[in-house]
């Protein structure tokens, strides 16, 4: 090889080295960009998780508020009425100076009934209790409580073997079912209510059905916050809610709840 060509070779090699440096810089920049994206993705995931937790908390507070309202009504309408009656009966006994066996028996029955009602209310208020008993049992007790006043025939059906849900999901599902039952009591004017738990392999399907007056779902979807709440809460658990209703044909709410 002629010695004159050495400088040329050196120039080529230095160019290659510089090019390689450039290539390495591009590689480093790509890695930096990739890491930046990863950081951004992590931030977004964190923000989404925080938003989800916030929504969950808001939903829980909302449900708590609704439960408190319904319990307040329950105490006022049932226990309050029973205790007022007992007070009247005791006043009668006081005015008469003596109380007959029948009157004492009535007072005892009414106080007993008030105590049972209070105990039921306490049970339906307690979220802690839900951790220890199965969901179907908790809903069954609610149905018994509603059915006890004789205004409505309540049925509970269970298909498949009951599977455990997380405490959070269980609580939300229970409150949703409870709210649906309260809505039936308040608005549906139904004589019959049935709740079906279908523990399928892929997910839990809960069907809440009544034979009441029903409503127009299209109108309710735009104006009713309650139905929207049910759908939002179902979505929070990773499931969904389907509502079917027509005037004079009752209402059916179907909740699809994933197990995990």
């Amino acid at each position, binding site marked *: *090889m002629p*010695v004159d060509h*050495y*400088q040329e*070779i*050196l120039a080529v*090699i*230095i160019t290659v*080295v510089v090019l*390689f*440096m450039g290539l*390495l810089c591009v*590689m*480093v920049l790509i*890695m*930096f960009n*990739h*890491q*930046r994206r*990863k*950081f951004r993705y*992590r931030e977004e995931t964190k923000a989404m998780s925080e938003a989800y937790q916030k929504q969950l908390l808001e939903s829980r507070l909302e449900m708590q508020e609704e439960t408190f309202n319904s319990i307040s009504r329950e105490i006022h309408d049932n226990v309050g009425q029973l205790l007022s009656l007992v007070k009247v009966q005791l006043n009668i006994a006081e005015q008469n100076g003596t109380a007959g066996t029948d009157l004492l028996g009535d007072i005892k029955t009414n106080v007993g009934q008030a105590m049972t009602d209070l105990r039921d209310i306490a049970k339906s208020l307690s979220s802690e209790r839900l951790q220890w008993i199965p969901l179907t049992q908790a809903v069954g007790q609610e149905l018994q409580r509603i059915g006890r006043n004789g205004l409505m025939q309540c049925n509970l059906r269970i298909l498949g073997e009951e599977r455990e849900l997380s405490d959070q999901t269980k609580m939300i599902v229970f409150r949703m079912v409870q709210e649906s039952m309260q809505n039936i009591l308040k608005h549906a004017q139904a004589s019959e209510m049935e709740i079906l738990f279908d523990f399928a392999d892929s997910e839990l399907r809960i069907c809440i059905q009544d034979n009441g007056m029903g409503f127009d779902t299209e109108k309710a979807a735009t104006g009713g916050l309650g139905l929207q709440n049910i759908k939002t809460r179902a979505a929070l658990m990773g499931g969904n809610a389907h509502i079917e209703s027509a005037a004079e044909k009752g209402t059916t709410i179907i909740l699809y709840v994933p197990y995990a």
Partner: protein
Amino acid sequence: MNISYYIYLGILTMAALTAMVSLKRGLSFPIRIIALVVLYTGMVEWSVFFKAEFMLDKTNVQMYNFFHLVQYLAFAYYFQHIIHSSNIIKVIQVFLYLYPVFWYTMVFFVFNLNEWNSYVFMVGGVFTILWAVVYCYQLLAADEPVMLRYNGEFWIAIGLIFFYVCSVPYMGMFNFLAKFHDDLASLLKIPLQISNIVMYSLFTYAFICQLTITKKS
């Protein structure tokens, strides 16, 4: 001696000084391995410089032959501590056992201690590139993002990739060039020194950014 050689010695000395500070501050174990290698490299290069400048016997290839063994084993050991893939860790373990055997065979049976051992350099260099690329891929594929700016291991890996990709072809044919085109072999030392300067600058940055993190935390 050309100017690039003096720049290289200056940068290497700076890297050795930051390595000493890193050792004193007790940084992470893998970084300390590299700090020791840099200190050792500094000693070797300064010894070579003094021998070439002030002594009659100017041969230094024995020092480099032994240096390569220590250096490649240290690099492999370093990557064994920062790579998470169990398969690669096993491969590095095998390399750590086999490379000294390979070195011994090459140095004493194929070449000799006073001869430039191109195979030892090439095999060690190629494996070092492989470990560094695997580490960079690990960073790229990891779920958790890493602040690359403050990740000393990353800059060390980049420095090693750059240096060995540039130097392996040249060092691989060094014996041939020295025998038939000695002038060209001398000229090609300039790109080699440039790649050395880049690598030790990156090492210096790697030590400094680790020191900054320690100071911050």
